[in-house]
């Protein structure tokens, strides 16, 4: 009986205009999004390759000139474009992707885009995640908003219960039928998108792509389940289908617009951080104190590396750097905490939660940023050790390490091939699975409580 109910619901929805329009719309958006993504990915890769080539050439020239200049020069490491950005961009257009570092310190991070036009208004890339969050989530509500209230209005619900069907069977059949239809729609779109990407040669159909696509579909099932359950809840609560629709649309606007839009406000009011100019003042004050503690002549310089003032200068500059680093590290940690705490608050919205889950699936976004920021610190120590060993071998160097100037360390060139280079870190499987489990668990909890509430109301409601 239950299977017959599901079949009946599926058949009804398939013949329904709203599903037909929804299906066509979803497939159209998948196709256009994939085609645009194809072009954009090629552009990004081309530009990134040019940027990397220039960067490596610049580093090579420095190395061939003077190892100290290579060590003290603030280099910029730019994270590469991801091949699976067609699944989700994870807001990487806005998250910092460029790190400034030298052999002595990892200084700062910022956002640098290969193809961003600052004159364009902010927009969302048409990827799988966008389709799921904007289109499919709304479809789920539109397919279920009148599942109960509509049948109650047309009195077919009472007729239904005149047969030997339990209320839970009716509710579950409506829910499952919508999930199956929308998952089928998503799957069709995903397959078409993958075909387009493979023909366009931006991806290779390997286990990584299959795994990412499967995980995306599984996570989408959770989102579809939650949104369709929400639609059923509105349908149960609303006295008529018009009212149910308004409730459903109101909740959708709440989750897609209101809650995410408040994230910055919460960040400001609940998780305040010090202003950047105050941090600069603190650093400046500390530097003044350090400067005063060193004897006169510390800023003298000459061509002779062994000039005694160079030793004082090197020690002072090192103190400057360590003092700045201490203040900066504390400040950066407060920025990370502010961001993470604000994100945790917006996880109340299932649409935001879905976006965060995409980071774990694709290995992008804030997760990628954090892991590379931490890994770069490890690399910096490795780079410094390399430079220190190289400098130690030079008899013409007094070995007074100065993080900003090359007065008192080796002036010999170094073979660029011997210099350790940073390799971008891809977030590990364990980390990603842990995050997915966390967000997936939250989804399951939301679904459970929402379905339970809907179920209890439905069981107790008067179908006449």
């Amino acid at each position, binding site marked *: 009986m239950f299977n017959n109910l599901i079949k009946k619901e599926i058949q009804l929805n398939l013949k329904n205009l709203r599903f037909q329009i929804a299906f066509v719309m979803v497939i159209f958006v998948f196709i256009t999004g994939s085609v645009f993504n*194809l072009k954009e990915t090629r552009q990004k890769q081309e530009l990134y390759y040019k940027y990397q080539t220039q960067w490596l050439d610049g580093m090579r020239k420095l190395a061939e000139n003077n190892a100290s200049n290579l060590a003290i020069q603030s280099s910029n490491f730019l994270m590469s474009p991801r091949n699976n950005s067609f699944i989700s961009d994870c807001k990487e257009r806005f998250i910092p992707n460029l790190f400034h570092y030298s052999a002595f310190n990892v200084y700062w991070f910022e956002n640098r885009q290969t193809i961003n036009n600052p004159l*364009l208004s902010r927009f*969302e890339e048409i990827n799988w995640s966008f389709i799921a969050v904007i289109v499919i989530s709304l479809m789920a509500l539109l397919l279920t908003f009148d599942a109960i209230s509509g049948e109650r209005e047309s009195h077919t619900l009472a007729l239904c219960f005149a047969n030997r069907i339990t209320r839970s069977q009716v509710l579950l059949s409506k829910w499952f039928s919508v999930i199956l239809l929308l998952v089928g729609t998503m799957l069709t779109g995903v397959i078409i998108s993958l075909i387009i990407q493979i023909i366009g040669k931006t991806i290779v159909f390997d286990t990584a792509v299959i795994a990412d696509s499967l995980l995306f579909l599984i996570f989408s099932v959770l989102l579809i389940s939650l949104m369709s359950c929400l639609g059923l809840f509105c349908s149960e609560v609303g006295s008529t289908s018009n009212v149910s629709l308004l409730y459903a649309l109101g909740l959708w606007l709440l989750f897609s617009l209101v809650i995410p839009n408040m*994230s910055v406000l919460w960040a400001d009011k609940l998780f305040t951080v010090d*202003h950047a100019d105050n941090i600069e003042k603190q650093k400046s004050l500390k530097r003044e104190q350090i400067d005063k503690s060193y004897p006169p002549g510390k800023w003298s310089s000459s061509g002779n590396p062994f000039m005694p003032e160079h030793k004082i200068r090197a020690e002072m500059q090192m103190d400057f750097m360590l003092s700045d680093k201490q203040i900066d590290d504390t400040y950066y940690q407060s920025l990370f905490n502010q961001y993470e705490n604000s994100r945790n608050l917006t996880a109340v919205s299932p649409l935001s939660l879905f976006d965060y889950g995409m980071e774990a699936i694709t290995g992008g976004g804030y997760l990628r940023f954090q892991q590379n920021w931490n890994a770069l610190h490890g690399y910096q120590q490795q780079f410094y050790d390399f430079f220190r060993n190289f400098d130690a071998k030079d008899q013409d160097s007094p070995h007074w390490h100065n993080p900003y100037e090359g007065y008192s360390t080796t002036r010999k060139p170094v073979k660029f091939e011997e210099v350790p280079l940073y390799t971008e870190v891809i977030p590990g499987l364990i980390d990603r699975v842990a995050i997915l489990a966390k967000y997936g668990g939250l989804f399951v909890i939301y679904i459970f409580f929402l379905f339970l509430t809907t179920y209890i109301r439905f069981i107790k409601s008067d179908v006449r």
Partner: protein
Amino acid sequence: MIWHIAKKEFLLNLISVRFTVALLLCLLLVPVTMVVSLDNYKNQIRAYQVAKESAENEQTGWRVYSAVRPTLVFPPQPLSVFCQGISRQIGHSVKIRLGEQPLLGEGRKSGRDNPLLYSFFSIDFVHILAILISLLSLIFAYDLFSGEKENGTLRMILSNSTSKSKVIAGKITGVFFTLTPILVLCYGISILLILFTPQISFSASEWLSVLVLFLTSFLFMAFFVGLGILVSIKSQSSFNGIVISLFLWLWFLFLWPNMATYFAQSSIKIGMLDQLQQSMNQYDEEMYKKVEEIRQTLPGLGNWWNCTGGDDGYFELSGSPWPTMDAERRLREIAEPVRTDYADKKWTLQREYLDKLENQEKIARYASFLSPSEIFCHISSLICATGPAAHLGLLDQARMYRDILMHYFIDKKIFSSFRYITPQPEESFFRTQDEQVNFVTGGICKNQKDLDEWMKAHNGSWSVLWTKDYPEGSFSNYPALELSELPKFTKFKPDITVYMRVILVEAGVLLFIFIFLFGIAYNACIKYDVR
């Protein structure tokens, strides 16, 4: 009769659940959005004040004309609380350099100190209004005809001596009567919140802009009312009507605008700003080579006592002997015009890059005009002076100011004056290097030759010899430049009257589309089968 029909529609809507939910949505969405926008604005004001103070403090430290490179800090537009445009993704300050034209705004993009917060979703009043008003217009209009046909009441109305044209006019008027208070409420809430925020105050012209924004919102609302009515007449049932309306809403508000912009970005190649910078650096290297060739021809260079330098030709010297001072002065006299010539060459590359950015933006804008919400948002960004046109207009002003400043330097022969490179009065220069060495070392070394030998014997260190107090050699002993005659930049506010023509044309397009839709709906209504 039209009035009666309109009144009936209005009263029916007023007591409906739709109206209550519509009010609740407004009362939730609008204040939340405005509070966030006002908070953003306060942060921008703070960032602006910090940047302005820094720019003013920098000016008080200018002792030489080679340091005179003003930083123009543009204040945030008060109307950005309604429409943020591109104001949060572009810098709000511009450094005037002789060696380079300003290209785009520099500095911090928004008032946020945490760059990670840029990734958070952000929507302004105009966008939330577009979403809300379009949705409510469709919700109130989708069953104007199909709903009454299903109920059987349309037949009853038309069985009286009421023409179909009066019925349609009355119904449309009724919907406008219903939606106008909601629109007024949205603006009322936002204006109230603005009035209660002390950090923001509008001038008379800004209040007038708010009125123009309100009228544009009305036109936008009219479009979606027209669309809803057309859907209501054309669809077989009110259920189909709402389904089609919602899909159209999703398409116009969420899908098409993103697709159009994504299309423009993925189709038009621009290249990275870093690559433009790389090409400009090649011109800089060429310029430095030329300057070096000039330097080789000038005797007397070297022997700097106290010197510092920096970006864009900044060079400050004090305490050096006259031959050094004069050689540096003559170098700048020849080299600075070379710098400005290379700025013009670099501008060709910059202009090309800017043209690409503008073309891409234009294509995105024209493509997205198939969505009336984008026309509305674009008009709003013009009215609020937060769009690309306003920003580029300010940068044009900044470039004109750079030209004025350059001509001031040329007309006053500043490049060839000592004051370009040193705050020290000419009469206090040492006549020769030997005279300086003798004075500073208290006679221990009589001349430069003695000093060189001493340094050779002491690993280059000679600071122990510096026994005589030498205040002329220290920058901090000199006052800042007197800048009362320096041309000042005054055009910090974009002039929106420049864009009035575009605003009127685009508003006209919205009005034309509404009239067109209304025409089709009217025609369809006349032929409508009420059975």
